[in-house]
Each structure stands twice: as structure tokens, then as C-alpha cells.
């Protein structure tokens, strides 16, 4: 029996689509907005060039990593192609004291937080499982279990509350936490529990959902019958949908939600409506489940092209800017390639380090057992 799950009692889904918060159209036209304009009124042409640079360089890191995977230098890569604006807009809305909890696809947020691009590669090359110190950049390690980090972010925000680091009015003290996740994750129990915890505790956390339309092969309608941002209302906090390919809009709505958290006014949900232009990961084959026409449709909404059009049309850049950025981009990619190949494989016995803060003797004995076993080959090969 086939159940027609597409049938709904509320008619044509398209008719129910909510308005996006959008400040920059796909054609690069600035759309005035009575409220959200006030949240980015400090943004200068220089800042927009900076955002453009973030978008371009983070995309370059991403495309280089895909290439490194194809060349066998990485075991896997999860491309963020198409999601740069959502990540840069939210990432640049963060203050140094704010704390971000990513999935495994937040490469542009990592860029904004100052995490070295090479450090992202260790996990995917298989030489470590997270090589940066989350305390240095307030950017937590990548979390692969879908949605698990939303609870960590919420708990961290509860700690921020207990530290009295919200609502003081001190812009360098008041702290927000941002939890990144995707449309697929909204079906996870952990995400729903995080919503509940954040709500009843009024925790200073922003739930930033990048709705990229796909959970591997499953389209959004496998996860939800209502626009995702509307879920927030049932949990008792505000939610909105933003054009996830519009870096200015993402910056504005993230600033609003983060400040709300810092002020002690509780959690928010942002649904950044975007599209995963690439495969789920380098092992995925999206031609099996989606149409090339959809991809073309979204290509016209590219997050980078619209900023470029805006800058050019407004005469806010010269050719030198683009030439310099091209050069910087290629240098970044070259350095990444070199650094990736230079990443050393871990020593076999290093797996015993950091299982525990205080390792038990039985574990240390296993380490010695491994070392002796490995040494036995060295002796055999030695005097040849």
C-alpha cells in the first residue's frame, strides 16, 4: 500500500510559503527594510567587500577540499557550496565572547571564527577528530551525530546564564551561543529537546537552521509539513525565515537574535533558506535523487554573485579588488594543499592518549602491548 503523504488538508504548499527576510536580491538589488536595515546601518562598503572576501575565500577552501578528496588526500569532505552566505552572515554577527556549536559543514563559520583552514582537514583526512582548541576561537569541534550539538549549545548557554554573562549591558561580557544544524536534524529528538530546554530555561541560544532542502537524498517534505521556522512558535520562542543566500539579511537577523540572547530575552530560531549545491559529501551522488533543473534554479540565487553584482553596480569596487582577491584565493588554496599533504599520520600508540584524563593501568598495559607488537616487526626487519 502506498500512503499519499503529500496530500495535505491545507491546499497548495506554495501558497503557504512564508515571506523571506531579504535585503539583497539574487540580482544584487538592495531591498529596503524598515527594521532590518537598522541592524546593519553600520555596515560600510568596506564591510561589504569584507563579507564578499569571506564568501569567496571560504568557497575556495571548500572547493580545494573537494579537490583534495578527489586526489585521495582526504577520505571525505562535506561541501558547503551554496551555503556561504548563511554561514558568513551568522558567523560575522558573532562577538568574540559568543560561542558557536557547528555540525560538520560549517567551514565558513570556522573561517569567520579564525580557525585555520588546515585544521578543518584533519578530521576528513583521518589524522585526528578535531584539531582546533574550541576555547581559543569559541568555535566548538565539528559534531557528526546529527543534532547532538544543539543540546551542548543549550547546556553551554545555561552555563552562560549561571555565570551572569547575559543582560548586564556590557557588550564585551554579554554572551550568546549559536547552534548550527540542518533541516534533517530538526527531526531528531535532540533538537526538539534542545528547543524545550532552551525555552523553559530562557537560555541565551540562537538555533540557526540551514535549511539546504536535502538530508542526503531526502527532500524537506520527508522532514516536515510546516515551514521549519514555524516550529519555534510551538516551543514558545520566535522563529523567522531568512534568505539564506543573502549575506546581509543573514547578518541582520543573526545580529537581532544574538542580541536578544545576550540581553537575556531567550532563544530564537532562524531558518536560513538555502540550497546544498553540492553532494551531501564526496561519497554521495545527488543525480540519483534530484533534478539538474532544480540546481539551475538555485544557481541563479548564488550567494556570491549577488554581492558581486551589488558591489559592481554601486561602483564600490575596482578591478584591482577582484584581481587581488583572486590572487589571495589561489594562494590560500595552494597553502591548504601543501599543508594538507604535510599533515602527519598519528603514531599508532597515540590512540591511547586522551581516552581518559586519568588513564587506568589496564589501558596503559594495552598501549604497551601494541608497542611491543609493533616493535617485534622492527626487530625482524632491522638486521637485514
Amino acid at each position, binding site marked *: 500500500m502506498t500512503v499519499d503523504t503529500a496530500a495535505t488538508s491545507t491546499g497548495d504548499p506554495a501558497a503557504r510559503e512564508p515571506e523571506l527576510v531579504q535585503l539583497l536580491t539574487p540580482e544584487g538589488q538592495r531591498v529596503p527594510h524598515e527594521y532590518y536595515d537598522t541592524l546593519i546601518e553600520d555596515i560600510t562598503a568596506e564591510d561589504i567587500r569584507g563579507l564578499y572576501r569571506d564568501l569567496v575565500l571560504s568557497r575556495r577552501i571548500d572547493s580545494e577540499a573537494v579537490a583534495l578528496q578527489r586526489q585521495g588526500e582526504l577520505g571525505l569532505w562535506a561541501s558547503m557550496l551554496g551555503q556561504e552566505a548563511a554561514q558568513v552572515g551568522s558567523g560575522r554577527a558573532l562577538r568574540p565572547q559568543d560561542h558557536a556549536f557547528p555540525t560538520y559543514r560549517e567551514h565558513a563559520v570556522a573561517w569567520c571564527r579564525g580557525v585555520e583552514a588546515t585544521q578543518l582537514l584533519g578530521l576528513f583526512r583521518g589524522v*585526528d577528530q578535531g584539531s582546533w582548541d574550541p576555547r581559543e576561537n569559541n568555535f566548538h569541534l565539528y559534531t557528526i551525530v546529527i543534532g547532538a550539538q544543539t*543540546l*551542548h*549549545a543549550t*547546556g553551554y548557554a545555561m552555563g552562560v546564564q549561571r555565570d551572569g554573562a547575559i543582560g548586564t549591558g556590557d557588550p564585551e561580557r554579554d554572551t550568546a551561543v549559536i547552534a548550527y544544524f540542518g533541516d534533517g536534524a530538526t527531526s531528531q*529528538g535532540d533538537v526538539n529537546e534542545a528547543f524545550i530546554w532552551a525555552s523553559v530555561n530562557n537560555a541565551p541560544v540562537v538555533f540557526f537552521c540551514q535549511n539546504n532542502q536535502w538530508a542526503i537524498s531526502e527532500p524537506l517534505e520527508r522532514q516536515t509539513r510546516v515551514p521549519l521556522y514555524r516550529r519555534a512558535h510551538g516551543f514558545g520562542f520566535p522563529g523567522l525565515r531568512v534568505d539564506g543566500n543573502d549575506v546581509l539579511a543573514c547578518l541582520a537577523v543573526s545580529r537581532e537574535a544574538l542580541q536578544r540572547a545576550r540581553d537575556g530575552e531567550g532563544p530564537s530560531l532562524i531558518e536560513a533558506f538555502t540550497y546544498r549545491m553540492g553532494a551531501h559529501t564526496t561519497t554521495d551522488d545527488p543525480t540519483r535523487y534530484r533534478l539538474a533543473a532544480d540546481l539551475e534554479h538555485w544557481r541563479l540565487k548564488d550567494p556570491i554573485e549577488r554581492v558581486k553584482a551589488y558591489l559592481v553596480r554601486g561602483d564600490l569596487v575596482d578591478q584591482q579588488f577582484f584581481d587581488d582577491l583572486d590572487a589571495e584565493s589561489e594562494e590560500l588554496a595552494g597553502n591548504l594543499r601543501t599543508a594538507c599533504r604535510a599533515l602527519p599520520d598519528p603514531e599508532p600508540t597515540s590512540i591511547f592518549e*586522551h581516552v*581518559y*584524563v*586519568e588513564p587506568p593501568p589496564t589501558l596503559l598495559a594495552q598501549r604497551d602491548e601494541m608497542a611491543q607488537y609493533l616493535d617485534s616487526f622492527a626487530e625482524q626487519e632491522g638486521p637485514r
Partner: protein
Amino acid sequence: MTDTTPASAEKPASARLTVVKAINAGLRRSMENDDKVLVMGEDVGKLGGVFRVTDGLQKDFGEDRVIDTPLAESGIIGTAVGLALRGYRPVCEIQFDGFVFPGYDQIVTQVAKMHFRSGGRLRLPIVIRIPYGGGIGAVEHHSESPEAYFAHTPGLKVVSCSNPVDAYWMIQQSITTDDPVVFFEPKRRYYEKAEFDLDAEPELPLHSSRVVNQGTDATVATYGPMVKTCMEAAAAAAEDGRSLDVIDLRTLSPLDLEPVYQSVRRTGRLVVVHEAQRTLGIGTEVAARVTEECFYSLESPVIRVTGYDTPYPPARVEDDYLPDLDRVLDGVDRALSY
């Protein structure tokens, strides 16, 4: 347990406490010593927990430190991870053994692995308290012994107290541990009492087992609620002229088996007793290691006296499922029959 209650009438801090009150006193002391220690779980605040282990703590330490959480175990563990990352030391209560599983994912994929994943940069000093075991006539999911799942997971430490004195010290030692600790509380022994000095020093480090009865004919290794059962078995065996070494393992991950090896080298026979089902249980690991370490001393196979490999049964047959004095003695008889 006899040697764990050196009560001295002269000491002013001496108190006669149940296991429940001892854990409560240990939590209280930990919270007094370190204002980063938090208690969180379902009904732990106003109610003081369904077993009253956290009774009075919210009143004295406030709602920010003794948190009545929403009813969702993954949420309890997952937010504890975040609180620990922020510098807190959460003590999570799982209301009953069988309810830990909604939080199992967070425990196994996050709590156990965060230190390793971060190359040692991050620590999660979280304690997860779980009342466990049967014998209380409860409905399904309220009598289980899931300790092996956690002892099988690298990155977690797992302990079980068996008496009030250990309960008092082990909870405090677990809270000061920088690794995550799963703390199993023998719920059917919750109301066992002992008098002891609350201001004394703990007799043992957390991860150490203890010989609780000296004997020469066979060794009995056990933990948690079965320690009392095995002590009763040892007393009964003594009347028949058999003396049993009884060892309270106390720590299940890591295991501290040196006292077991020493004992087995003398007695040549080992019976391992636990409520949990047999296959791949703690007893299986103890048997394997004793076989490795004491092979030439063994006079008989290692005998496991355990729950059976069934789901925990309805309460009216739990007495047949659970090891009792007679089944322990039967196990000893089998060991001695070789």
C-alpha cells in the same frame, strides 16, 4: 561490609546514615566544596528525587544549582555536556536504570568521546547517577542492571557502591574526577544503614576493589546490591565449615582485579556474582582476565552466578531470576566440585 563501618562514638561528625542519606550528604558536601557542582534531573528539586537522594538540596543551593529538568534523558545528558564545557561539574540523575537509554546516545557518542575527540583539550567532568538493580517488586524498566553497556565503552568510568560509607565517599570522589563517571546505586540497598565518620578520609581511592570477607576455600567477586547477598552466603558457608573470600569490586571500569588475582592464587576457585544477565557481563570479563592471570592456580572453571539471559522478568518471578544466597552457595559448591 563489616570492615567499612569503623564507627567511633567519640567523633562528633559520626552519623548513622542510609545509602540514600549518605549519597545526599556526599552531594551536599561536594556542592559546598565547589560551587561549580550542579545537580540535575527529573524531580530532583522540590521533590528531592523519587528516592529522596537529592532531598533538601534545592532548598539550600537554589534552583540554578539543583535543576528540575524537562522529562527527557538525552536532554539531561546533552545539556550537561554543554554545562561541563562551560566549566561546570554536573551530576545528572537518571530516575531508573531502564530510563537511561534515551540518553545512551549522548553518553556513548558525546560524553565518552569528547576528551579523545578534542585531543585532550576538553574535559567532561560529568557524573551520571543511576539507581539500578531489582528485588523491589517494580514494574518493567525499573529493575535492570545495564552497567556492562557503559563498562564496555572507552572513555567512561563506571563504579557501583554497595553500602552507605562507600556511597558517601565514592560520590564525592566521582564528582572530583575529571573523567565522566557512571555511578550505579544499588536501589534495593538504599535503606541499609551504617554509622561512620563523615569527616574522616576515604579509606580507598575510587577505582579500587576491597576484600570484605577473608576466606580460604573459594573467592567470590561481586559488586553493588549483591555484596550483601554474598556476605550472607559467606556467613552461611562458614556454618558449613567453608570460608569464602568475598571481594566488593566497587569499580567496574576500570576493574581493579589485583585483589581478585591474589585471592584466586590462594583459593584456586572463583565465583562471580551479579544481577545483570550473564552473557558478556562484568563476570565474563572477570573470568577472562582471571584465566589470563591465574591460569595455573585455577582448580575449577570460573563460575558465574548471575541473572539469566532474558529481559528482566515480571516482579512475581524476579526472586527466581536474581541470584540469592542459595544460588551463590550453589555456585560455590560447583566451584568446589572440581
